[in-house]
């Protein structure tokens, strides 16, 4: 059982996001990077499947500049067996077809039974990579998995739908599945894992696809033309003003 887990390094939710002077991207220098949240869940799911099967390999594949090796090592520390790093010079190409086709070139070299990825990245948030890869490799695909059940030659996935609805889908293997946050409890690496990760293999390769079908014109802070009325004062004053607003402006009673 061979599972590939695609992970991405993204700015943390509390990280500052200063813009570059040309406003084409953020200034990476002062950003606090972390592993993409849903990728963490995807990794945990893969590790749990390998543990329940008692055999198999979990391979982490990641695309990005040198700094992403930090999250690759994290994944190795948590239990992935080895990693492949598609090293790019900088985060400039946001086209999911670029990302997916470069992943495909690496993934097709080995025969993976499953490809897991987070449902979307917390930076660009295109949410397509896993499904694109699956389609490009002729695999069955499913998105937003809230539960997986591995069967014989297939896998059952509980897809999340709108408004509290769900759907079970059975996919024949090999399959590419995007994973929703919250379906398991990601582990913390043990010291052994951390130390062992230093010795695990990270194969570095270069990307060779150059697709660039969508690109950023400008990145900027949201300007809202909506004028928010700020209610101020001491706590007691705020309570009074709120009641006034409820009564006279919003007219709820």
């Amino acid at each position, binding site marked *: 059982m061979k599972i590939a887990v695609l992970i991405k390094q993204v*700015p943390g939710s509390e990280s500052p*996001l200063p*813009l570059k002077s040309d406003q084409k991207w*953020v200034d990476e220098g002062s950003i606090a990077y972390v592993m993409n949240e849903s990728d963490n869940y995807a990794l945990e799911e893969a590790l749990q499947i390998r543990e329940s099967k008692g055999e198999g390999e979990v391979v982490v594949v990641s695309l990005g500049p040198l700094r992403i090796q930090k999250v690759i090592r994290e994944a190795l520390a948590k239990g992935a067996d080895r990693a492949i790093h598609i090293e790019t010079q900088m985060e400039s190409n*946001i*086209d*999911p077809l670029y990302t*997916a086709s470069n992943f495909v070139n690496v993934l097709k070299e080995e025969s993976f039974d499953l490809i897991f990825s987070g*449902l979307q990245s*917390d*930076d*660009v*948030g295109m*949410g*397509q990579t896993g*499904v694109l890869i*699956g*389609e*490009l490799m002729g695999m*069955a*695909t499913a*998105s937003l998995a809230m539960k997986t059940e591995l069967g014989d030659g297939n896998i059952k996935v509980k*897809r999340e*739908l*709108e408004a*509290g*609805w*769900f*759907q*079970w*889908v*059975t*996919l*024949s293997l090999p*399959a590419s599945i995007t994973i*929703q946050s919250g379906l398991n409890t990601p582990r913390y690496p043990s010291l052994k894992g951390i130390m062992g990760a230093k010795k695990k293999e990270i194969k570095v390769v270069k990307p060779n696809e150059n697709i*660039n*079908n*969508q*690109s950023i*014109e400008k*990145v*900027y*802070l*949201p300007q*809202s033309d*909506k004028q*928010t*009325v*700020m*209610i*101020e004062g001491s*706590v*007691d004053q*705020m309570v*009074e003003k709120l*009641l006034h607003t*409820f009564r006279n*402006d919003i007219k*709820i009673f």
Partner: protein
Amino acid sequence: MDILIILEDNNGKIHRMGLESIVAAQKMATGLGLSTGALVLGANSDALADEASNYNVGEVIKLNNSFLESYSADGYAEAVKQVIEQEGPSYVLFGHSYQVRDYAPKVSAKLMKPFLVDNVAVNINKGEAIFTKQMFNGKLFSDIKPNGEGPYLVSFQSAAFSSDSLERGSSLVKEASVNIDSSMIKTESEPPFKEEAGGLDLTAADLIVSVGRGIGKEENIPIAQALATALGAELASSRPVVDAGWLPSAHQVGSSGQSVSPKMYLALGISGAIQHMVGMKGSKNIVAINKDPEAPIFEVADYGVVADVLELVPKLTEALQ
């Protein structure tokens, strides 16, 4: 046609996001001087075609096929891809629904054409359409343009356009056909199901008090409940509160919970991450109480209070009683 709108089925009626896509298409058509058309497919395509013909969409393409009777990612992707090849549009518009997220990227891969997702706006600039998307969990916006030759696949975020501005009209319906065989369908789906029995229908609520992580801990939820009771409002929450087990998922508002549009949405300790905003943007009046003056929720709120929820809410409740 130049702009093909893919309309999603909501139990025999056009899904609200489909109607919003028509509005988007109508805007782009006017701005770029393009023609529009709409595609309906699946088991209820007849009913959907009927409904669509009452809007100003250009022409309505109705697609019936045994492999499309129930949803499958492979089936829908292959069908849409073939219709695109038949009709040759330069833009294909979707609502950014769970279903679209599941199959539309496959269309993108089949055609090797870009899919610009989850846009909150489209602007026409020198004869070009530039799409605006949120990034970094809503902290930044980015303007994205497609490169190379079309067709370009585009999806719009829920409530990015309002179906209030839908232009009515009369459009002709034509039938289309596609070739799908069973070897293309690599999945088997069971019927969708709801998990929460005994539904709390927030979509019908007039007043909602909603709690986020800022409530601190499970023990403090009664503080919010007390306020809701005093206002005669329903209690809702953001996803992290449900994930932590502090409230059952029936209370969840957001992209993976319910979408609500009450007269007043009182957000307590909710930061305003997009996943949540998407579910309550349609509220008539949003009042946000949060300790952090930089919380994104203040961007969408009509009234904002920078205060500690745990300090303010009990006093507010008391004053109401």
